[in-house]
């Protein structure tokens, strides 16, 4: 029964993630537009965009290779696998044993690398600039993320998302200084990585573009779910929980996503759009916060 339950949870989780990703992006855009004083398109607009892109005949740029058709698939697949590993409403899903944080960080990097290759394929200047910026900021973001992961793993004794989340649920009130720094660093990284969009899809169209957009939407969702699972797993059902707890978990997950969207959009409205230098500086601050997090967790461990 538990095996079946875990499998059901996994399938439900994947379906929810697939449904949530474009909707979340749409919601974010709608709220951004409202904050900027526009009416904004409907939160369901990304779904219509997908349908339109899939229906349209695609056009390929001259001088492109198989990378233009294959790399978007790799990018979307990497993000989809990452999304299936990060818990949303319950722990103890079938893939829980494989949900390693380093693997998730690696999959995010893989998705980014594949998208950058798509941008470089037509050989036009904008694509190259976009790829170069994506990888530079992505590299900085990964650097900060790895430090945060190091701090969390030192604290929890494992790099597995579920183990860390279960531990956070158990000692929800324990907010050490190191964890606060880690949360701040992750928020900054998520802000830059999920909100700053380079024009990677200029040279592609049709279903390839749809896949790239899907990967972007999934990336935002994976970031928000990661923050939720690692730092604020309120209401997440434990392994082997019943349907009632699942319902509470789903409700808490939706609430969490809404709060994150509000926080992201508000901070973006206050900070303004991030230029390259500002984004790099923000990530530098995140890096520093990550180092502080590791230092404080290490100091905590040294204290008797």
């Amino acid at each position, binding site marked *: 029964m538990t095996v079946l339950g875990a499998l059901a949870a996994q399938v439900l989780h994947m379906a929810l993630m697939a449904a949530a990703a474009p909707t979340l992006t749409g919601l974010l855009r709608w709220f951004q537009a409202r904050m900027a004083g526009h009416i904004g398109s409907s939160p369901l607009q990304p779904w219509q965009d997908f349908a339109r892109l899939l229906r349209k005949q695609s056009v390929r740029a001259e001088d492109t290779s198989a990378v233009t058709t294959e790399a978007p698939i790799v990018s979307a697949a990497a993000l989809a696998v990452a999304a299936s590993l990060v818990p949303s409403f319950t722990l103890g899903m079938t893939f829980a044993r494989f949900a390693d944080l380093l693997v998730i960080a*690696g999959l995010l990097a893989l998705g980014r690398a594949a998208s950058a290759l798509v941008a470089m394929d037509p050989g*036009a200047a904008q694509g*190259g600039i976009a790829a170069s910026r994506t990888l530079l900021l992505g590299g900085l973001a990964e*650097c900060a993320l790895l*430090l945060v992961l190091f701090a969390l793993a030192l604290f929890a004794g494992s*790099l597995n998302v579920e183990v860390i989340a279960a531990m956070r649920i158990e000692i929800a009130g324990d907010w050490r200084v190191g964890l606060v720094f880690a949360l701040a660093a992750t928020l900054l990284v998520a802000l830059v990585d999920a909100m700053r969009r380079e024009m990677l899809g200029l040279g592609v169209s049709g279903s390839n573009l749809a896949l790239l957009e899907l990967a972007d939407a999934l990336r935002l969702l994976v970031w928000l779910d990661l923050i939720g699972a690692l730092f604020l797993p309120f209401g997440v059902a434990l392994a082997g929980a019943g349907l009632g707890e699942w319902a509470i978990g789903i409700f808490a997950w939706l609430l969490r996503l809404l709060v994150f969207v509000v926080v992201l959009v508000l901070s973006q409205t206050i900070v303004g759009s991030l230029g390259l230098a500002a984004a790099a500086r923000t990530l530098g601050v995140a890096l520093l916060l990550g180092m502080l997090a590791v230092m404080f967790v290490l100091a905590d*461990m040294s204290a008797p």
Partner: protein
Amino acid sequence: MVLTLLSVLIAGLVLLALFARLVPGPVQTGAVATIAAAVVVLAGVALHSGASAIALPIGPAGAMTHLALDPLSACFLLLLFLAALGTQIAPLTLAGTAATLLAADGFGIVVGLLLLGGQRQLRLSAVAAVCIVVALALFGSAGEFAVLRTMPPDGWRAAVVLLLVLAAAGCLIPLDPAIAAWVMLRVVFDLCGSEQAVWWGVPLLLAGAGFAAYSAWRAALADTLHAVAGAAALLPFGVATMALGVALCGRAVDLPSVASLALAAAWLGVLAHVLCRTLLQLVADEVERSGGTRRLDLLGGVIRGMPVTASSCLSGLFAFALLPPGIGFAAFWLLFQSLLAMARFGDPGLRALTLCVALLLAASFGLATLAGVRLFGIVFLGRPRSPRGAVAEDPRGAPRHVLAGLAALTALLGILPGLALLPAAGWTRAASPMLLLTLRNGAEAPGYSPIFIAAMLAMAGLAARRALRVRREPPREPVWNGGFAALPPWLPFGDPAAQFGAASFVAPLRKLATLLPHIDMQSSLHQMRAAVQRATTAWMAR
């Protein structure tokens, strides 16, 4: 028996090198390849049958040369000669490699290293050999390894031995980093015993972390194919060196599980290094042969004529860029886990060190992706930047199969790193059945399962492809190039200088680097020399 055959094969290689002028080229290549294949088979047999040792009646007066074959040397023999099958290596270098790996006393190592250095890098190999002999002499006698193991050095002698071995390894990196790793493993891990101080791992950890970050940085900035390939292959070697440092610390604080985890990481790192080095070197050679240049800024769009080379390059870069599910990522994962375990259980000094190491490791992780995408994107994608590059073609015949085979092997070992850890189980002491499908840091711990990740990626990819199947080939249009007009017929590749090139790709990175504290080595050296000169003249005038 196996060892006797191996020494005969080494002698054959030396003879081939001596009479190279008498033997026609193709015959020599064939003979070297046959001998390399025989060595691979013999090393495989030796892994199965266990350790053996013989004494040859040659060497300094009144003494014998001892050779020994244990799991450690058999592993490295297997790896290095398997890689040698794919490339053309001088017979003398191969003989030196085999002699060094099989040596079981100081004399054997000296002979092996001098052969390895050959004429071109004799100075470096001689310095390394002297360092090792002095280090062995500090044990009490530079004789047979079996004797040395019974009397490990202690006190100041141990410290000097470590420094000398590190110096020797540093000299060996330009010759062959894998041999450098082997020297560290043999002397520091095997001969010095486990009763050493905790700080032994520290220089290795720092050197490895610095090396990894520096090679990733070099790979991101270098502007020729061969320079990028060379720097890229050194990143996994840096990971391996770090892992050796963690293993030493783990052993010193009596955590055998951490030590074996780190040793497994070190082996995977060396393996990734050798595979990356061979594969990227072959790719660089092929592209240069066919494209006419090794400068990144003159290549472009090569994938159209060279699909096999391009996919091989992708496989090598995947291993280098520490992306899952590649072999480099497996080494990185194991290293990260062992670092964590060391920080959790180690002493406070080590903990402070792990912060610094983790930062450098994270930086190399970020830079490696950038370097890999830059190399592939500039060389293989986009529009051709020169007429010769536009007509580059894949190699035919044997080189093509070698490339494809090596690329497939690299990808396979990335998906099944347990397979790569099997031959090394004798000296890493990592529990092999547990590791075959999933890398774990404990019997019950959840781990990293590359085959699961690969299967999931493949399933998601196939599903997406089926769902989005395109019924007919889409029409091709000129790309919108920021408002530039379509290219005139008399300028078929456009103006190469107007394309986004390798230097433009890292321009933001260079700009970012100016924010870091900058040390100008050249001018500091000049200033130091001037200061010394001033001091000398002042002293002379007195």
